[in-house]
């Protein structure tokens, strides 16, 4: 089983990212479970969302305490003390940030996928909604699923012009992510 913990802020699409990721894995025949955790919904307030993926049905209903992969949508969250708590050894970090990462921000990290998803989102979608771009980066950096699975599921959530822009954002995420091995 793979456990993915997505950290963002209200309005950045963290919850939607977790759901889309789940749908993408279902496109490859996997079992999934995804849920967000936040108090009151506020644009800007921290949000965490969880997605579990496995070959057999997921039975756990708890939060994710020992993630295999972390997706950090807002770089300012990197200063949260407990951000990486419980990360498994050999863990993966997908980070939206304009700057690269020289050394791993946590000793359990062995793969980093860094991309300026905000810039790509503003260019492709016109607004700072970096979630789909990060999903593309996730596919490239982890290799746990193919890009086309992600692209195929965006249609469940978006339509028309917004869908097209998000597809391009995801593609650029896949192509332009800087994958770092530690």
């Amino acid at each position, binding site marked *: 089983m793979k456990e993915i913990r997505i950290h963002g802020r209200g309005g950045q699409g963290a919850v939607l990212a977790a759901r889309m990721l789940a749908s993408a894995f279902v496109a490859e025949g996997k079992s999934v479970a995804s849920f967000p955790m936040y108090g009151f*919904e*506020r644009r*800007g*307030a921290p949000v965490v969302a969880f997605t579990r993926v496995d070959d057999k049905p997921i039975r756990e209903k708890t939060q994710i305490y020992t993630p295999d992969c972390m997706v950090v949508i807002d770089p300012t969250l990197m200063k949260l003390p407990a951000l990486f708590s419980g990360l498994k050894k050999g863990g993966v970090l997908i980070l939206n940030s304009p700057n690269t990462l020289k050394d791993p921000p946590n000793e359990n990290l062995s793969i980093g996928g860094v991309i300026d998803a905000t810039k790509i989102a503003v260019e492709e979608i016109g607004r700072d909604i970096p979630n789909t771009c990060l999903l593309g980066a996730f596919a490239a950096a982890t290799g746990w699923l193919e890009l086309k699975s992600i692209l195929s599921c965006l249609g469940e959530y978006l339509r028309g012009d917004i869908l097209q822009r998000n597809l391009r954002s995801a593609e650029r995420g896949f192509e332009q992510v800087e994958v770092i091995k530690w």
Partner: protein
Amino acid sequence: MVEKLKKKPRVYDYFKEKEEQYAGGLAWCAGCPLELNLRFVPKVLGKDIVIVGCPCCSAPILYGQNVGTWHRLSYYSTLMTGVASSATGLARYYQKVGKDVTVVCYTGDGCAADVGFQPLSGAAERNEKIIYICYDNEGYMNTGVQRSSTTPLHAATTTTPVGKESRGKPTVPKNLPLIMAMHQTAYVATATLSHLEDLAKKLVKAAEKKNEGFVYLHVFCPCPVGWRIPSDSSIQVCRMAVRTNYFPLWEAEDGKFRFTHEVASPRPIEEMTKLIGKFAHLKEDQLEDLQQMVNDRYALIKTLCDANK
């Protein structure tokens, strides 16, 4: 180098309490006029008020978190069904023990116009000595932009969506300020955040009239997220609501009506709706519907004001 003004805006003269009662960083969305509204109230009414609130957009700020709190005001929290009645309990106790306390209810339209309307109407009918401030963001915004009874005609919300079969809210909104004025309580008024001096005057009058009976202030308070307005335009939307007569500014003392701000030549409703995403789907016919409603309601309030001249 441009010449610097010497005087501050006149609104500051109405401040009884200069010191900010709230913490700097609060959980309201960027650009929300509710934050301005709530920070403004204790500056005019003073910091010795008791605020009564319920779960709504201001709950994450008015309620504490365990022992911590986000402000320095005396606060009583209750249910959406119990705001005006809880305030009655407080006010009646303070009257009984001879303490002059200003009890201020502070809710959204969901509480005031829908689930909490019955106790609100009851308290008004009993002319309880409390101030009830409703910030009307025309829907249940804290729970994610669902419709309320003050959601305007044809407006889109998550429970009155635009689809093949339906195009937004099919019914006109409840005219809550007028309904409350029909209780003929001590003082009822409408106000909004673009006209802060008008709001300040009404809060000062509210503090006086509360000693005679029930005071109801209905504050037009757009929701950037829910109405799909850019964060920087919430005050501008308030201004346009007044200028289009969509939200006329008036007051009623013991049932006698008076405009506090008359718009010489009101702009077409389109000048407001074009700023607001929830009206983006309006076709010509729906726009005319809305304009007709605005004209009818304005004519009604004008008649009531003229009757008092």
